[in-house]
Every structure is written in structure tokens, then in C-alpha cells.
């Protein structure tokens, strides 16, 4: 069954691509069918625990679904379907639709493949398919191809090769590629390998989940890919890194005596990722970039949770994984809709779309609230649990760091909302209409999903609980959340609902108030036409107040921003290229020199022949 689903995806991808050559509509239809039919089959036909074997090159590839991967596959499939529906209108009239559909389908396939892989070889194969299909997506629009695309690919390749090395070493030492075997027999490795392998694997997963020193590809890649894909990219694809990290943390690091140290290091890295990415997000003027950095930041929270590794932290992390996929998916869809309707995503150019695109605004609002972690919505639940887990673990400084990041997160959340939707309407954007229904519905669905999960978190706790049991945590009988002050002090989860309703009522009131009252008595002033101190601004100078929106804040954090890791990498890369350029001058182009090399080599071998051949 699993094989059939994966094959359907693969065949569908090719058929879609070919069909798209015939006519765009056929391509669209085929695309939807390709995503939805296997996805439906996945929901209905696949049961947890089912195992398939495939033989290749003397290796046995084992595929099956575990509770943990079931949790992640829900994200993949769900997000996949919604984004597919969203993508059809989004891609209408754009170039390279065929390539988009092809890679989209392949990405979904690859992610499902990763999740069902029970051995490292198939895990790696799908991992690489995922990498190159997402790479082709990142460079699909042809902007900044060499810089962004290559950066993404280099980091992915480093990660992938680290994983490859880890898996061949494990295979040679333990004689099996099966994940279960490698985890169970981890103790049999030599001490060096016991350290080496987790580090290699963590590098691999850290790249995908944009962990701090390896994150530099992420903002550019997220913002460069088509928005209809970025939702999947940030929501599901980067979660594959988390998936791997959970496996490694629980099964390998736990068995190490030095495990706590590694855990702490990773947790701190995650914390820094969260904080730094948040600061970076604040300074962005482009919605895509902002969300991209925000994604990196959120991954930081998740990494902290996974690294701490207490049941509560794990619960928080996995909860955040799911809800992050939802609200970030929704937000990227929002940006995509705005891009589709206005043609730009720059805060400094767009104003006051709240009336033009109300439904988009509503989904953006709900998702942003969730992102910021404001109480009633899902983001709050996960963050709260994370703080608690950290405090239980006596990581107070880390809590402060995360709390700082989370608070700073409000700033960019506000910037996002304000940048697009609030403020004065510009005549320039008067023609803008609401996005097509097929684009609005998916994002609304996701937004409502966050809402529901924020209200009824126990809906998610069940599957997370069984996933955690699968990776080796004690069964909690469904009362894992009993550890949380939030839930135990207030008695039961149900008590969240009154709060929510109250907040919602206030919120609706203000919304209605603004709706009726807001625009009355205001006068139109072009936001782009400000003269200051007698200096007449030139026409092309954009002097809206949105330029340097957060200037005072930016001034404060400037010292941090200066230390951009990206720059170090670039310098390193340039150095390497110079070295390469120097090295290739060995080939002087003079045939005689080559002959001299031959004689030189001969002389060297003759001189050292005793060392070589005894």
C-alpha cells in the first residue's frame, strides 16, 4: 500500500508534468488528482505498523509507518492537500507551472517516503529527493539563482553527506541499515563512533531544520521559493529535520554518558536561533523575508524542546511542530495571496489591504496571534509548556532568552499585520480584490485549525502521546499534560474555553467597532509624500513611515546584527574559490610541464619506493 502510494505520487508527478505540456487545465486537474488521490489513500488505507520490504543491491529497504511518523505525515499530507488547492490559482498564468507541479508532488512524495522509511538507505534516498525537488523550487523563479540556490544546495549537501557518512559507518559497525537495529545496538559502537554518529546526524538534521550556524540558507530559500510552496517548505519540509532530530535525541543521545552536555549545547543553539532569528525578522521590510526569519526562529523553539527532551518539553515541541505547520502555512499563503493580487510583498509599498482582502486579513490575524503566542491560540499552549519544561529542568537563563525572543516576536508580528493590512488605503492599490476562493479557503481552514487546537489542545495530545511512547517515553495514560501548571492549576483543559470566548468577544467587539467607526472622519493623505525640513523628497524616494519602521529598536540591536554568519561563510567561500583558482594553475597548458610532472612523479615514486613497497 505504501509502495503504491509513493508510486502514485511519482507517476502522477511525471504525468502531471507531461499533461501540463498539453494544456494548462489538464495539468491543473492532474495535479490535484495526483495530490489528493494518494493522500486520500494514505488517510484511509495505511495503518500504523504496516511494513513493506523492497530489495535493492543486496540491501533490504523497509517501509512502514510508526506513530511518530504518523504524526508528521498528517502534517505533510494535510498541508500538501491544502497547498495544492491553493497552488492551482496561485500558479495560474505563471511560468514553469509544470516544473512547479512536478517538484511539489515529488516533495510530498519524498517527505512521506522519509516518514515511512524504516532503514537509513531509503531514508537517505527520500531525503535527497526532497532536497533536490525543494532546491528546484527555490530557484524556480530565476531570481538570485546562483547565490540562493547554490547556498541552499551546499548546505543541504553538507547535511546529506554527513548523514550518508553516519549511515555507512553505522552499517559497517553494526551490519544493518535498519533504524531500529542501529538504535538498539548503539551501545556496541566504539566510543568515538558513538560521539561521531550523532554529531553527523545532528548536522544533517540541523541543516534542514535551520539550526543556528547552519541556517543561512533558510531565509533566502524560504523567501525565494513560490509562496505556494514555501508553506510546505517551512511547514512540513523543515520538520523533517525535527523528525530526525527527535529520533537521534531520544535513541542515541539518551544512551550516551555525555548526552546531557550535547543536549544542553543543542538547546542553547536552539535558543540562540530563536532569539537571533527573531531580531533579524524584525528588521525585514519584506513579508516573505520576515516570515522566513520567523520560521527559523520558531524552529529554534522546537529545537529547544527536542533537545531538553523531558516528556513535557517533547510534548511542547511536537505540539509546536504541528501548529507551526498550520499557522506558518496559513501565513505564507497570505503573503502569496497578497503577492498574487498586488505583485509585491514589500511593506513599504502596500498599505491598508484590510478592506480589500478581508478574509485574507482574518486568516492572517488569527495566524499571527498564534505565531506570537498570545494566549487563546495554539502558539500560546506550546510555548507555555516549553517554558514550564525548561523551568522544571532548571534552565532559567534559557527561559529568559526564549522569553525575550518571544516578546520580541510581538514586534515583527505587529509589523507584519500593520504592514500589509492596516494603515491608510492607497489609491495605488484601489483595484486590488480579494484572492480567489480556492486560495482563501485553505488559509482560512488552517487558521481555524490553529484556533481549534488552541482551544482543544487535547485533540493533539493523544497522537503526540502515542508518538512519544513509540520513541520510548513512558505511557502517560493520556495525562501528560497533567504536568503542566496551566492545565493542572486550572483544573482541566476545558477551562481554556471560557477565556477564549471572553477574549474573542472583546476582539469581535473591537473589530466591529473599527469596521463601522474606523474610517469615518479620516482624511486621505498620501503616505508617500512627506516633506521634511524644507527638503523636497525626490519622486523615487520612498519615505513612508514604514521605512525604518523599527528604527529605534534596530539601533539597539545593531551590534548583534553586525555579526552576520552569512558574511563569514561568504568570506570562507571566496577564500576557497581563490584557493581553487590557484590550484588549477597546476594545469599550465604547456605540454612540456605535464611531461615534467610525469618525470617528477616517477622520480618521487622511485625515491620513496622503499617506503611504499618495502
Amino acid at each position, binding site marked *: 500500500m505504501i509502495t503504491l502510494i509513493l508510486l502514485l505520487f511519482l507517476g502522477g508527478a511525471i504525468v502531471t508534468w507531461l499533461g501540463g505540456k498539453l494544456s494548462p487545465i489538464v495539468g491543473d486537474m492532474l495535479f490535484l488528482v495526483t495530490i489528493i488521490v494518494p493522500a486520500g489513500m494514505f488517510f484511509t488505507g495505511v495503518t500504523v505498523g504496516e511494513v513493506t520490504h523492497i530489495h535493492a543491491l543486496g540491501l533490504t529497504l523497509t517501509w512502514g509507518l510508526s506513530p511518530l511518523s504518523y504524526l508528521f505525515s498528517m502534517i505533510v499530507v494535510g498541508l500538501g492537500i491544502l497547498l495544492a488547492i491553493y497552488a492551482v490559482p496561485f500558479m495560474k498564468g505563471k511560468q514553469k507551472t509544470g516544473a512547479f507541479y512536478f517538484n511539489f508532488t515529488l516533495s510530498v512524495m519524498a517527505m512521506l517516503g522519509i516518514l515511512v522509511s524504516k532503514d537509513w538507505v531509503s531514508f537517505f534516498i527520500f531525503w535527497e529527493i526532497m532536497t*533536490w525537488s525543494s532546491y528546484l523550487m527555490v530557484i524556480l523563479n530565476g531570481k538570485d539563482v546562483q547565490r540562493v540556490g547554490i547556498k541552499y544546495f551546499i548546505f543541504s549537501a553538507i547535511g546529506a553527506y554527513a548523514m*550518508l557518512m553516519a549511515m*555507512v*559507518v553505522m552499517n559497517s559497525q553494526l551490519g544493518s541499515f535498519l533504524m531500529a537495529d542501529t538504535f538498539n545496538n548503539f551501545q556496541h559502537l566504539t566510543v568515538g563512533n558513538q560521539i561521531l554518529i550523532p554529531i553527523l546526524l545532528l548536522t544533517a538534521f540541523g541543516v534542514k531544520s535551520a539550526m543556528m550556524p547552519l541556517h543561512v540558507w533558510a531565509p533566502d530559500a524560504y523567501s525565494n521559493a513560490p509562496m505556494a510552496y514555501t508553506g510546505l517548505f517551512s511547514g512540513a519540509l523543515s520538520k523533517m529535520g525535527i523528525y530526525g532530530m527527535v529520533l537521534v535525541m531520544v535513541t542515541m543521545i539518551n544512551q550516551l554518558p555525555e548526552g546531557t552536555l550535547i543536549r544542553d549545547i543543542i538547546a542553547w543553539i536552539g535558543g540562540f536561533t530563536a532569539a537571533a532569528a527573531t531580531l533579524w525578522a524584525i528588521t525585514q521590510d519584506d513579508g516573505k523575508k520576515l516570515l522566513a526569519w520567523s520560521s527559523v526562529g520558531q524552529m529554534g523553539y522546537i529545537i529547544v524542546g527536542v533537545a531538553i527532551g523531558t516528556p513535557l518539553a517533547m510534548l511542547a515541541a511536537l505540539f509546536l511542530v504541528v501548529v507551526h505547520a498550520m499557522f506558518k502555512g496559513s501565513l505564507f499563503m497570505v503573503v502569496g495571496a497578497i503577492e498574487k493580487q498586488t505583485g509585491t510583498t514589500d511593506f513599504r509599498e502596500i498599505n491598508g489591504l484590510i478592506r480589500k482582502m478581508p478574509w485574507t486579513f482574518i486568516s492572517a490575524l488569527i495566524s499571527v496571534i498564534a505565531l506570537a503566542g498570545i494566549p487563546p491560540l495554539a502558539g500560546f499552549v506550546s510555548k507555555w509548556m516549553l517554558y514550564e519544561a525548561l523551568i522544571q529542568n532548571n534552565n532559567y537563563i534559557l527561559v529568559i532568552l526564549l522569553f525575550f525572543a518571544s516578546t520580541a516576536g510581538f514586534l515583527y508580528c505587529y509589523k507584519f499585520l500593520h504592514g500589509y493590512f492596516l494603515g491608510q488605503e492607497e489609491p495605488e492599490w484601489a483595484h486590488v480584490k480579494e484572492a480567489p476562493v480556492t486560495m482563501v479557503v485553505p488559509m482560512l481552514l488552517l487558521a481555524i485549525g490553529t484556533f481549534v487546537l488552541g482551544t482543544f489542545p487535547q485533540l493533539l495530545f493523544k497522537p503526540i502521546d502515542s508518538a512519544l511512547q513509540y520513541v520510548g517515553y513512558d505511557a502517560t495514560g493520556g495525562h501528560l499534560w497533567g504536568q503542566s501548571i496551566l492545565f493542572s492549576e486550572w483544573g482541566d483543559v476545558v477551562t481554556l474555553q471560557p477565556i477564549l470566548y471572553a477574549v474573542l468577544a472583546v476582539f469581535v467587539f473591537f473589530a466591529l467597532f473599527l469596521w463601522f467607526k474606523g474610517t469615518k472622519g479620516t482624511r486621505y493623505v498620501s503616505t508617500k509624500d512627506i516633506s521634511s525640513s524644507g527638503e523636497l523628497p525626490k519622486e523615487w524616494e520612498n519615505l513612508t513611515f514604514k521605512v525604518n519602521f523599527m528604527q529605534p529598536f534596530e539601533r539597539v540591536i545593531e551590534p548583534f546584527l553586525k555579526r552576520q554568519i552569512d558574511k563569514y561563510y561568504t568570506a570562507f567561500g571566496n577564500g576557497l*574559490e581563490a584557493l581553487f583558482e590557484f590550484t588549477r594553475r597546476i594545469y599550465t597548458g604547456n605540454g612540456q610541464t605535464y*611531461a615534467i610532472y610525469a618525470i617528477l612523479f616517477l622520480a618521487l615514486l622511485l625515491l620513496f619506493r622503499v617506503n611504499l613497497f618495502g
Partner: protein
Amino acid sequence: MVGTPVLFIAIPLLAAFLIPLTGMVWKESVRIIPGLILAYLLVLAINLLSYVTVNGPIVEVIAGWAPPIGINLVFNAFSGFLVTIMVFMGLLVWLYSYRFKSNVEYEAARKYFLLLMMLVTGSVGIVLTGDIFNMFVFIEITGISGYALTAFYTGRDSAEASFKYLIMGSIASVFLLLAIMIIYSQLGTLNMADVASKMHLMDPKYKAVSFILFVIALGIEAEVFPLNGWAPDAYAEAPGPVGAAFSGIVVKAAVYALIRYTYTIFDLSGAFDLLIIVGLMTLVIAEVAAIRQEKLKRMLAYSSIGQMGLVFVSFGIGTKEGVFAALFIMLNHAIIKPLLFFSGSYLVYHSKKKTISDVDGMGKLAPFTSLLFALGAFSIVGLPPFAGFWSKLSFLMAAADSNMLLIIGLILTVSVVELVYYMRVVNRIFFFKRASHLLARRPTFNAYIVMSVLAVLILVIGFYPDSVSTYLHNAANSLFDKSQYIHSVLTATIQ
């Protein structure tokens, strides 16, 4: 059995001598006959290979003198496997260049196809022969065809490349003869199996010197690092299909020769270390040089050299798995590199300088060719689910089994470099705006067929690697079974 190994040499030679005559009667025959011959050889190779898989190696005696005395040809699972690849590639190259040359006049066509056929024959001879001096003769045949084909285009650079190749080739043949004579003077025989069986009687000093001379001589042909200066020039300046033939056929033969000496004939343990060192140098320097190339074909050439380095490292591991991986890499390289050369030469067909920037935006103009190039690029860097992945995986497994962690790390690091330069080209093809006004050239019908066949092979091996693994295993076993090789040759009789 439908034929014997000697037909691999005799039939093409007979045809080569016949072609000038038939050409006087029917001009088209000079182009068709080589193709027919190669097709026949392919059938023969496949038949013999399946026979060998069941019945064990065939040792063909020549001139009626049993092995230690006369020359013999050995067709076993290892050499047969390589011969099959080579003949197959030869046929594809012929098919690819068949229409390609339709506008060239008779004389040029005659020479081109003749030389091409002899290039294949010479390489096949290197692989099949069981006599060290006979191998020298075949190396010269291959060499002269190679020089001529490199200089085949009348531009000035092709002559320059050919001259460099020739200088290196001459030096190689000098050292090769020296090495052969040292062995002869010590053991009084030229037969490989005989030499191998008596090798333990040889003074270690002579052993080392002659082995070093062999390494230099064959290393020049096999593009080992300090000796491979000629290779990029020759690859880049030879006509497109010939570049493919070099990487798919000639280098394979030279690698075979070197491996045969290391594994079967000499029993020096240090030889494996040498292979690893040399292979790593080749790999690193070539990939590093490739990333800075401006010309597409030169880049491909350097990449090809790099792959050979990987093959050497893999052989140098010295385990059966290592040999298996090396053969797998060679097989994949033989399939993928020609595809890259073929599609690449169409991508820059009309461009004068053939720089990489000339492929900008080709994806729109020549979607099929571009797609195949991308497929080849993805495959050669080892991205699953294409053919290259499996060979890389089996190599890494072999290396890991021998605990060569540093080497694995180094090779994977270099792989990143390789990835970068291939992806840069793919990026340019599909995601850049067309800068020049040159139009794309439509591949000919034959070229379509050839490239499609290669692409299908890449996909088939990628999705179903077991389709070739039996042959690879047999080949690896047969290389490893030294005593069986010696025994089967020395007891060979006239069939």
C-alpha cells in the same frame, strides 16, 4: 558459444582493411560498416558474457601456441563485463555521430569512422589480452587513434591538445616498454598469468621499479593526477562524440590495465596504498579545477578525471566490496558521462567559445537536451534515485567497512564541490535568461535515440540497481580470484 574472443580483434581489423576497398565501390559503406561491426561485436559480447557467467572464463589461444608461449586472450566475467560496456558505448558513439557527419565529405568520414572503430578495438584489445607486450601494442593502437581523433577538427586548438596527448603518450610508451623489459629479463616470459604465477620469484627491487614504471605509463593513459594534463585538453577539443568515447571507453581500458597489474600480476601490498593516495589526489585536484572552468566541455573533462580518481580510491580499498563499487562507478560513469558530453555539446553547439554562460536559458530553447543534461548532472553527483547514487553508496559502504573514515569525509567534501559546479550549470540552463542570440541546435534523430537510451539506462539502474549487480559481483569475484585466473590461463588448450 557463438564466437570466440579473438573475433573482437580480428573482425574490426579485417573490416578496417576492407573499408578503403568497399569505399571505392560504395561510398556510404565507410560509415555503415563500422556500425555493423560494432553491432555484431555487441551481440558477440553479450553472448559471451552470458556464456561466461555460466561456464567460467574463456581463454583463447592464438596461433596455436598454448599460453606461456603464445599470446592469449582472456574473456572472463571481469574483462567481459568491461568489453561489453565498451562495445556498447562504441556502438552508441557511432550511432550518435552517424548523421552528425553527413555533411562532411567522403575522405573525412572514412577516416573518422575508421579511427573510431579502431579506438574501440584497441581498448577492447587492452582489456582482453593476456600478454603484457601485446597490451603495449593495443595501447599504441588506441593512442594513435586517439591522437588523430583529437586533432580531427581543423581548428588550431585541437592540434595543440593532440600534441600534448602525444607527448604524454610517447613518454608513457617508453616507460611501459622499460617496465615490460624488466619483467621479461627477470622472468623470461611475457604472459600475464605466467608472470603472475612466478612473481614471488622476482627480486623485490625489480618488482618495485617495474611496478612504478607501469604505474607511470598506464597512469598517463588512465588520467592519474600528476600525469593527466593532457586529458582535459583532449576531451574538450575532440569532437563531442569522441570526448564521450574517451571517457566511456579509452580510460576504462587504461584503468583496467592498471588494475590488472595491481591485483593480478604484482603482489605488492603497498600498491593499494599508492592507488588510494593517487586516486585521492586525482579526485581533489580535478574537482577543484572543474569548479573554476569556463568552458563546458573542460568542466566535464575535469569531472571525468575526478570520477576516475574515485575509481582508483575504490580499487585501492582492496576488498571485494571496493572492487564492486569501483566497477559500479565505472559502469555509471560510462553511461552518464557520454550523456553529459552528448547533450552538452548540443547545448553549446552554435557557440564559438563554448563557455558555460552560453547555456543560459537553454532550457526553453532545447528542453529535451537540457533535461537530459540535468538528468546526467543529477545522476553523476549521486543524487538518488538515479544511477550514480547506488555506486556512491556502495563505494562508501566499502570504505566504511575498511574503516577509512577520513577518506569518506574527504570524498564527501569533494562531492559537495562537484555538486556545486554541476548545479551551477543546471541553474544556468533552466533559470537564467538567454543572453546570447544563438539558437539551439536540434539534435539529430540518432542523437535523440542515443541520448534517450542512456537516460533510460540511468533511470533503470537508478530504480532497479539489481539489474546490473549480478554482473558486477561476478566481475569483482573474478578479479579477486587470482589463482583461478592463472590456472585457467595456464591450462588453456586449443578449443
